[in-house]
């Protein structure tokens, strides 16, 4: 309680959009405590695209779930616009690894899921807009079952954007896609991000993906996860994937993680 009031006092108007303060997470497995996250601090600015990069099982998804309000941290707080996160909130939408779309609803139904409170006309207008934005025109009445993995992921992104959230959380959203589709989806996400100016927190284990997308890459250690380094990707979009700067940044992250970039 004392901690909370101190935090509130510190929440200055220019505070970060998302502020992660001293977050630790311990799970109990078979009666044994397992530390997953230890004392994480991270600020994300309004409109920033931040990738959280780490090996599988390092706890980066746990972190995203805490920020998203689905898990309560063992210690520490997450503030958004200076207010502590107490649960999931439609102002901040989570896009899941896969299977996040509702299979009983059409593309239209999914995209309109969060718009139940709107008047029918406004709802239809927004659905049409986001169907177009994610390139699914002509598929409005189709059920997810009949869509490819990439298209399903587009539906989920559109469903998230349709409620006009401030922040998007993406948890390895393209992990289940083939490499070509994944590359296309990254380009699409950047295009949408530039059009919609959302703050994005994107979790991935793919070094290339993080360097291609993010303003900053937060490199995590193995469990219990701490932040090893934060890498500024000082390259404007569109990024040249064979430029010297890109390769430098990518290789520095490979090194940071302790991988020689050879196979």
């Amino acid at each position, binding site marked *: 309680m004392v901690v909370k009031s101190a935090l509130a006092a510190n929440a200055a108007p220019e505070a970060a959009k998302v502020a992660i303060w001293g977050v630790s997470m311990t799970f109990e497995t078979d009666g044994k405590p397992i530390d997953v996250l230890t004392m994480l601090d991270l600020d994300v600015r309004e409109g920033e695209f931040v990738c959280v990069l780490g090996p599988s099982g390092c706890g980066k998804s746990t972190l995203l779930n805490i920020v998203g309000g*689905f898990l309560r941290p063992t210690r520490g707080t997450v503030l958004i616009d200076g207010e502590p996160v107490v649960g*999931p909130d439609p102002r901040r939408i989570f896009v899941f690894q896969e299977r*996040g779309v*509702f*299979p*009983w609803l059409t593309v239209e139904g999914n995209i309109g*899921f969060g718009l139940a409170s709107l008047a029918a006309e406004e709802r239809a207008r927004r659905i049409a807009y986001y169907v177009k934005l994610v390139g699914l025109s002509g598929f409005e009445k189709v*059920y997810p079952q009949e869509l490819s993995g990439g298209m399903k992921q587009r539906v989920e992104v559109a469903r998230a954007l349709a*409620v006009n959230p401030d922040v998007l959380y993406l948890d390895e959203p393209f992990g289940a896609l083939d490499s070509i589709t994944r590359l296309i989806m990254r380009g699409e996400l950047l295009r949408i991000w530039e059009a919609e100016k959302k703050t994005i927190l994107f979790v991935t284990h793919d070094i290339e993906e993080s360097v291609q997308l993010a303003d900053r890459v937060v490199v995590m250690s193995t469990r219990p996860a701490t932040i090893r380094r934060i890498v500024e990707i000082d390259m404007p979009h569109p990024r040249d994937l064979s430029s010297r700067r890109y390769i430098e940044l990518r290789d520095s992250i490979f090194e940071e993680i302790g991988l020689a970039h050879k196979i």
Partner: protein
Amino acid sequence: MKRLIPFSATTALLAAWFLAVRSQTSGLLPGPLQVMRGLWELLEKGLLVKYMVASLYRVTWGYLAAVATAIPFGLVLGWFRRGELSMNPLIQLLRPISPLAWIPISILWFGVGDTAAIFLIFLASFLPLTVAAMNAVRNVPPTLLRAGRNFGLSDRGLLVKVILPAALPQLIVALRISLGVAWLVVVAAEMIAVNSGLGFLIVDARNAGNRYDLVVAGMVMIGLIGLVLDIGMRQLEKMKALRWGYGS
């Protein structure tokens, strides 16, 4: 040609039945023509429609009462882990008891008549539907629940907009199977607990003069109605909003 395949085995059985009965005179089984005549006789007397309506009436009320109570009950049990933990042993204890074992008790409670039969059908459908609804809730993918919460749904909203539609494919299968069971049980219940219906027809035809043509006629009608009920329920599974739940 392909459309005839589903009828091939049935036609062959009819032919074999016809030939077998014609080649012997023991009277152990009435032939198809006798059965047809029996059906016609029942129709002319007005008994066929009367008995069909009686059986369907009991199934309808017993089954609907079970659906209306078991599904909400099962959904609640599935949602509250403690509810399931406390109820499950009892459910598993009651489940192996055949609904027919309840016949004496139901006659004791409700007397010989419709209520006793309806009660038996209710019992036969209630437990399987409860278990199915309970499991269906538990199998709702957590990702979908989280997505629902993320879009600001209340508990009620989550139930109506996520849990129910996610559970529906499994529920429909359970509804179809338990309607089949209800139809099995009504026949047995009518043999003992009431004085009308297709089950009663079978027992009555035998007792009142060994009219085995009418016995078999009753059996044929039971089979046909069961088939129609099942086809009707299967149509539900073809709905586009449900098909995702049945594999591809």
